C-alpha cells in the first residue's frame, strides 16, 4: 500500500516525531511504500542537522536521514513553516528538501492513506 506521513510537531518536545518514525519504519519493513514524509508546522524542526542531543539520547534528524537513505524516501519540509522557524537549505540534514505546501496536497492525492502525527 502507498502511505504518506504528515508530522506536525518538533523533535524532543513531543513524542509525535518518534511515533511517526517507528510507524514509517514498520511500514517499510512490511514492504509498503512511503511516498512522502511531509514535515509541517513545528514538524519542520526535525530536519535540522544542527541538533546535538546528549550522548545517551536518540538523534532524531539522523534517524530520519538514515531511514531516508536506506529506502530512498522523499522528505519534504514545508517552506513557509520552515522559514518562520529558522529552517533553511543551509541547516537541513541529508535527505530532506524544502518544498511547498502543494506537495502535501500531491501526496494526499497519490497515497492510499496519509497518517498524521501530532495534532
Amino acid at each position, binding site marked *: *500500500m502507498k*502511505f504518506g506521513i504528515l508530522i506536525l510537531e518538533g523533535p524532543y518536545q513531543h*513524542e*509525535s516525531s518518534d*511515533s511517526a518514525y*517507528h*510507524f514509517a*519504519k*514498520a*511500514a517499510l*519493513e*512490511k514492504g*509498503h511504500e512511503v511516498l512522502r514524509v511531509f514535515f509541517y508546522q513545528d514538524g519542520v524542526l526535525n530536519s535540522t542537522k544542527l541538533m546535538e542531543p546528549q550522548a545517551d539520547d536518540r538523534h532524531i534528524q539522523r534517524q530520519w536521514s538514515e531511514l531516508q537513505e536506506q529506502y530512498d524516501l522523499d522528505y519534504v519540509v514545508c517552506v513557509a513553516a520552515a522559514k518562520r522557524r529558522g529552517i533553511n537549505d543551509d541547516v537541513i540534514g541529508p535527505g530532506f528538501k524544502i518544498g511547498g505546501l502543494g506537495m502535501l496536497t500531491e501526496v494526499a492525492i497519490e497515497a492510499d*492513506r496519509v*497518517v*498524521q*502525527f*501530532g*495534532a
Partner: protein
Amino acid sequence: MLHLVNKSPYDSTGLESASKYAGKSSGILLFEDGVYAAMSGTAYEDRIKEIMGDHDVYALKEDLDARGIADRVVDGVKQITYPDFVDLVEQNKVASWS
C-alpha cells in the same frame, strides 16, 4: 475507520471527541500518552469500557511498556505493536485526534 488518540484522557478531550464522532464500526487506537485511557483500576475504566461497547479499542504495546502499565490493561483492549498498527492503517481510513 480508525481513530488515533495520543493524549491522556485526564489532560485532553481528544478521546471523548474521537468517540463522539466515530461510527460504530470504527476502531480507536491509543498510543503515546493516550494509552493511559486503557489502564485498569482507574477513574476512567468505566468510560473506556463504555467506549468498548461501541468500538474496538487498541493500545500500542511499545507505549504501554514505556509507561510501565502493560500488565494493567483493561480486559478486552487489544495490545498491538507498530507492525500491527501498520496493518490496521492498511485496513482502515485513519484520523488523528489529540
